[in-house]
């Protein structure tokens, strides 16, 4: 093997390791991270709000949440994104923003809709993108500083069409003691613990279809 060939194989091996790590197959921090509870960061500035939600995918091997992306709609024609994830660099040294389908995201006043989320079950990452109708069903209006609990978003396997699968989407806003306990732990000993719970618009929207996940 020439020097040049050796010089190629070493970086390739490292790149393969990097690919496996980046693909979510494993991380050295997994054993420690698994014991970490969901915990909100301190507010980045006064007057912010915290969105708390849960996503449940009713499908075998769907896996835990990796990322959540909310679209900020407006004001006017402006569009932005707010997201959180559990696959960030050096994640073991920062607070965990999502676990077991629960997540917290800090936001400023505005209108937010769930745009997409990703999961990784059996090492296979999948991205779930909401159709317009489903997005509107997840809409949350953030005004005064508060904790906005958007409830549980349940995604279940729906109809099978030609070359695509559709998923039914349901938003459950009924109080759930288990979720409330998760939220209480997430904000304990932070500034958020002194921020009031925001009243949410009662009534869950009708179930709507969701786009098939990208492979």
């Amino acid at each position, binding site marked *: 093997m020439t*020097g*040049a060939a050796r*010089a*190629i194989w070493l*970086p*390739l091996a*490292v*790149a393969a*390791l*990097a*690919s496996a*790590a*980046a693909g979510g197959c494993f*991380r*050295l*921090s997994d054993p420690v991270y698994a014991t970490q509870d969901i915990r909100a960061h301190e507010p980045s500035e*006064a*007057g912010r709000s915290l969105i708390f939600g849960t996503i449940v995918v009713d499908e075998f091997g769907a896996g835990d949440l990796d990322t959540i992306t909310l679209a900020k*709609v*407006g*004001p*006017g*024609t*402006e569009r*932005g*994104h707010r997201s959180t994830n559990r696959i960030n*660099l*050096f*994640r*073991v*040294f920062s607070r965990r923003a999502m676990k077991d389908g629960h997540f917290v995201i800090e936001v*400023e*006043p*505005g*209108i937010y809709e769930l745009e997409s989320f990703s999961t990784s079950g059996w090492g296979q990452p999948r991205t779930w993108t909401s159709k317009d109708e489903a997005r509107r069903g997840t809409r949350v*209006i953030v*005004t*005064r*500083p508060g904790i906005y609990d958007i409830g549980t978003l349940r995604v279940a396997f729906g109809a099978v069409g030609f070359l695509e699968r559709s998923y039914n989407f349901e938003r459950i806003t009924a109080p759930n003691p288990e979720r409330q306990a998760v939220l209480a732990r997430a904000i304990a000993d932070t500034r958020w613990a002194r*921020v009031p719970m925001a009243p949410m618009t009662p009534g869950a929207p009708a179930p709507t279809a969701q786009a098939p996940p990208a492979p």
Partner: protein
Amino acid sequence: MLGAVSAAAVALAPVGRAHAGAEEPAVIVGRVTFRDSVRQARAEDVERLRWGRLIVEMRRGWDVYAANLDANGFFSISGPPGTYRLDYVRVGQLTEFLAPHEVKARAGRVTCLGTLEIAVADLGRDLGNNNDSQLQVRDDCAALEPEVRRLANADAGIATSVPAPVERHWKGPTAVEIAAGLRAELALDNKGGSMVRGSLLVPISQDTGSGNFVAAAQLLHLSAAFETNRLSNGTGTTIPGTAKWGGAVGAGYSIWLLEAMLRGGFLAGDGPGEHGPMVGGSLRVGTFLFGVGLQIERYPSASQQMQLITLDLSPIGLLGSLL
């Protein structure tokens, strides 16, 4: 017209923590008007049209101060001095979000905001539904002064301070982003030689979804073996090369997995082979963690050019991905 305003229409409702300080309060007075494609409407008309009270809410830190609009759209807020921010207006059960505006209110002073005009396509349909409303701020405090003075209920001086749009400034890359931009690079030339180099890539603008500008500093190194291989290739004899060091800086654009850069630099040394000033360009496909690229480096003073295939890896990025 202004004299006909009902004094009872103004309500003040501080929300959140009460102001416990001994400092003199600041008073903010302004007027909100409404307009659509066919008409200009007073608050009173809009309330009838939309079946709901119109309420302005301004936030100072964690505290929110709310005030009803009177028939002509006037409102008054009293609170501690500081920076107040307007994000939205309540329209009954609905909320119309506006481009955020901020105003500074000083202790013991009345701050006139002027007229805030909210324009939508159709007041009866769009107001409160966030269908592309526009907020225009007009400094007409001179005309509003009698009403401002009456609402503030004080002879204190009136300061005009038209709310300014809140501009979000990019705070620059984070320490982790900068560290992850450090790359070890293996470059292969078209004559079978290889060399290891290093570069630091730093984002210099915010990525808002359509990519961002990046700057790079690169450490150039041509090893003696690499130079010998290049000089000897195809000649049938071994021409000894010497190691050369240099540096380059560049700038480019990164979008999604693509990164294009232009570079300029200098490679020390003399004799045969590449040396002297360098200009070049590169195209790379990859993530922050690793990538594959093509580089062209031209040394005009030595009449030399190198085409390189590069493989790069961010050691800090790799460590961060594993932890």
